[in-house]
């Protein structure tokens, strides 16, 4: 038992075995691929199909008989294998190609006969009519100047520009010159055409209305073509320039963002330290790679499109497009995966780690609160500020420092107490606690004076996980605290019965009463 298909060849319907169909389809596809999609090609194929249809009709005794593999093979032997058809054809093409060489448009090919690597330079030399030595010298020269981008360009050209294999292609490679004056010439030709058809419209002798209308259409058509050609050329140039500039800019910024590319590492650039503070090193590398892929590939395609608009050459757009899409999607997936894993690092939040201290007793009712700057940095230095966290650069190392917040409450005992709460986020609950415990903060008591560090710090290579430090000073009833001016940066929303703003509380003594803190006049 065999499956059959119903096919229509040149207006006749045939039943055909599946294997026979495959065979016939392959045959016609090969011929199709050779003659191409042009007017002439289509006509040739239509003729061949019509003949195949005729042969089938002769061979089949009745309309219901099925075309089998044997019959298809017979047809192919009658029509000739593709190679046999093309062989005679090729010979003819070469003859005619030689006579019309001058007219043939030049195409960009790689020249395998004069190659060093991929034949790109020799191909370009044939295309532009410049000596190959000049092209190679330019390549080598720009290789140093452009820090490798020319290398990239060479690889791209190697991939996308087809190799000149057949004689026809080699002739096309050296066909009619394509240069600026030539482009100008085509545009001039087009312009002349537009002008001619315009003149025709203005020709008062135009006898029929229909004729005039036709000419308007003609004129519009050629005007549009001219416009399109100019736009395409400008677009091509624009694409290439835009693509290259953004590619260089983008890769440049990736290099700055990532000290992995060490030669640029010591260039001072504020944004450069940001990723390092958030993300661990392997993730940064992967992030860099995937971002380069996700942003770089569209830019490469942009350059490719531009080059294609400027120079005519055949490429397998489908394969290039699909490959680019595949790699791009892989980049996206990698980026999303990384983002999720990074977000996860912040998942468990608000975990606290509290430490309670009772202050040593002293011979006074007043506790003096002062703050000292423990980190030597000035606000003019480069730094990044995020929600009480600062990322600063010191001795070429990034440091994360944070400002604690300080509040004053009533103590439930007769002693001054200090409570230090550390908060952080982390991938797991345990990790969050560990991150909180890692917060380094110091304060000291000397009799009635408590000295607070202005900043808390994190151990080296720690990542920002939304660390916070909150200090609560517990003051017993009837006892007094004095807020030194240096406390300005730390105090945060201290409750008092007069609703005085934090900064107005500085330099004053405050007593804890039953109602709350109140100012001593």
């Amino acid at each position, binding site marked *: 038992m065999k499956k059959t298909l119903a096919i229509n060849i*040149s207006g006749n319907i045939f039943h055909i075995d599946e294997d026979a169909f495959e065979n016939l389809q392959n045959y016609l596809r090969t011929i199709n691929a050779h003659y191409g999609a042009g007017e002439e090609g289509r006509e040739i194929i239509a003729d061949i199909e019509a003949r195949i249809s005729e042969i089938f009709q002769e061979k089949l005794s009745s309309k219901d008989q099925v075309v089998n593999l044997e019959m298809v093979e017979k047809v192919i032997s009658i029509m000739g294998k593709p190679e046999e058809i093309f062989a005679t054809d090729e010979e003819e093409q070469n003859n005619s190609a030689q006579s019309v060489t001058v007219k043939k448009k030049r195409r960009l090919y790689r020249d395998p006969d004069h190659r060093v690597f991929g034949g790109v330079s020799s191909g370009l030399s044939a295309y532009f009519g410049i000596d190959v030595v000049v092209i190679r010298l330019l390549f080598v020269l720009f290789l140093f100047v452009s820090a490798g981008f020319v290398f990239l360009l060479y690889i791209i050209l190697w991939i996308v520009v087809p190799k000149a294999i057949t004689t026809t292609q080699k002739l096309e490679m050296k066909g009619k010159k394509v240069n600026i004056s030539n482009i100008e010439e085509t545009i001039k030709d087009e312009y002349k055409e537009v002008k001619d058809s315009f003149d025709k419209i203005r020709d008062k002798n135009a006898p029929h209305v229909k004729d005039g209308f036709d000419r308007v259409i003609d004129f519009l058509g050629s005007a549009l073509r001219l416009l399109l050609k100019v736009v395409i050329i400008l677009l091509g140039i624009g694409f290439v320039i835009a693509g290259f500039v953004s590619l260089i800019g983008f890769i440049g910024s990736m290099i700055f963002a990532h000290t992995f590319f060490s030669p640029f590492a010591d260039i001072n650039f504020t944004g450069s330290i940001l990723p390092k503070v958030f993300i661990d090193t392997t993730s940064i590398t992967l992030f860099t790679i995937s971002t380069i892929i996700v942003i770089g590939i569209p830019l490469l395609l942009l350059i490719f499109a531009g080059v294609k608009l400027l120079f005519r050459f055949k490429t397998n757009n489908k394969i290039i497009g699909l490959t680019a899409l595949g790699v791009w999607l892989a980049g996206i997936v990698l980026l999303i995966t990384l983002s999720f894993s990074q977000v996860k690092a912040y998942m468990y939040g608000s975990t606290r780690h509290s430490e309670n201290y009772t202050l040593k007793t002293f011979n006074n009712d007043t506790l003096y609160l002062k703050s000292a700057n423990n980190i030597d940095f000035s606000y003019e230095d480069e730094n990044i500020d995020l929600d009480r966290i600062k990322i600063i650069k010191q001795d070429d190392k990034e440091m994360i420092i944070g400002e604690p917040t300080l509040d004053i409450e009533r103590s439930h005992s007769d002693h001054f107490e200090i409570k230090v709460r550390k908060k952080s986020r982390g991938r797991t609950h345990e990790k969050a606690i560990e991150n909180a415990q890692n917060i380094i903060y110091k304060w000291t008591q000397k009799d009635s004076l408590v000295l607070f560090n202005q900043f808390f710090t994190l151990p080296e290579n720690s990542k920002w996980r939304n660390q916070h430090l909150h200090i609560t000073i517990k003051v017993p009833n009837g006892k007094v605290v004095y807020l030194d001016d240096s406390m300005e940066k730390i105090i945060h929303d201290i409750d008092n019965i007069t609703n005085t703003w934090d900064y107005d509380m500085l330099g004053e003594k405050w007593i804890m009463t039953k109602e709350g803190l109140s100012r001593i006049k």
Partner: protein
Amino acid sequence: MRKGVLEYCILSLLSKNDAYASDIIKALKQAKMIVVEGTLYPLLTRLKNAGLLSYRWEESKQGPPRKYYTITEKGNNFLVELNHSWQDLVDAVNTIKN
């Protein structure tokens, strides 16, 4: 060389009678000028595009209409030229052979 002769044959055939592609094939096969039929179609199309021959659609008893090829004025002129060069060639070869 062979291809040029093939064109010459096609034009000669058509100068006698208008013909379907299948008729041309039959004649060329009989004369052992071509082995496979596929070769002919690109040739016919190019000759038509060169203005040496043209075709019209003829209804057939069975199936869709078929191309019926005919030689053009230009084709006839070209054929006269070809006849001359062919005669020259034959004469030249004969002179050498005798």
